[in-house]
């Protein structure tokens, strides 16, 4: 009954892409204009929170290894924390700008979880390569939300943040359960399929 893992990645890719598009639009329009409609200022923080929530069933149903469960559980926590903190900030309930540090924290936790829970080397198969790549994208990309925490009104930093999110989304769309990467596919990975 479980969907193939690649399909779960594609579904998350759609949600993450939508968050990235909203971030790009906010960076282009400016925070003042973005907040002109009440529903819009809650849009991408809510989506982030919901994506974090959906990581829990992934943890619960894909129990192929303990490390996989820990990884998904930790980044479900991190994503929900970042989404909830952003909701609190845009609502005005949270005042301290230090809450913005939840984003770089979430990025570092997510990146580390991606790298740690992929136990195969980079060129084992495409999914292994992408897990390493996404992990490092998150860790290096944590500089973007960190820069926003320091200069929250910078459109350039917000566009960088959006670019990291969209890059992760593209990498998730490229995921396949068993497929070669740059012509490499370990015989231990199994039979390649569509």
């Amino acid at each position, binding site marked *: 009954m479980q*969907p*193939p893992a690649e*399909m779960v990645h*594609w*579904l998350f*890719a*759609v949600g993450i*892409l*939508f968050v990235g*598009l*909203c971030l*790009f*639009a906010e960076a*282009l*329009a400016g925070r*003042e*204009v*973005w907040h*002109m*409609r009440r529903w*819009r200022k809650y*849009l991408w923080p809510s989506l982030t929170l919901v994506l974090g929530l959906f990581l829990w069933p992934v943890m619960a149903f894909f129990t192929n290894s303990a490390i996989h469960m820990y990884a998904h559980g930790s980044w479900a926590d991190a994503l929900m924390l970042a989404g909830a903190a952003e909701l609190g900030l845009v609502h005005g309930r949270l005042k301290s700008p230090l809450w913005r540090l939840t984003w770089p924290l979430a990025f570092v936790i997510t990146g580390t979880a991606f790298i740690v829970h992929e136990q195969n080397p980079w060129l084992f198969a495409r999914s292994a390569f992408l897990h390493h790549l996404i992990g490092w994208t998150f860790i290096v990309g944590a500089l973007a939300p960190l820069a926003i925490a320091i200069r929250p009104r910078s459109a350039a930093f917000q566009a960088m943040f959006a670019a990291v999110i969209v890059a992760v989304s593209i990498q998730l*769309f490229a995921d396949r359960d068993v497929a070669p990467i740059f012509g490499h596919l370990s015989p231990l990975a199994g039979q390649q399929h*569509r």
Partner: protein
Amino acid sequence: MNTTFVSEAVRQHDLRAHAISLLGPLVAAAGLVWAILQPSRITLLHPRGQGFYWLAIEPPLYLVAAGIVFTVVVARPLLADLESHRATTR
């Protein structure tokens, strides 16, 4: 105010509005290109023998849908607000 500054601000505003209006169509176009390059991903074209998930989850179509939903739900109201903000600050 100096007219050079005003015209520069208007030009930047137009560029931003143009970029926002392009985001959704670009994503939808990426989905269309993907569907053309890998028609096997669109299992609705050859549904016989496909399982539920392969029929329900077709990423190129999701990309197209994401582009359309973003354009209608987010970009259009945002562009209207950008225009009204420009009118009030002019």
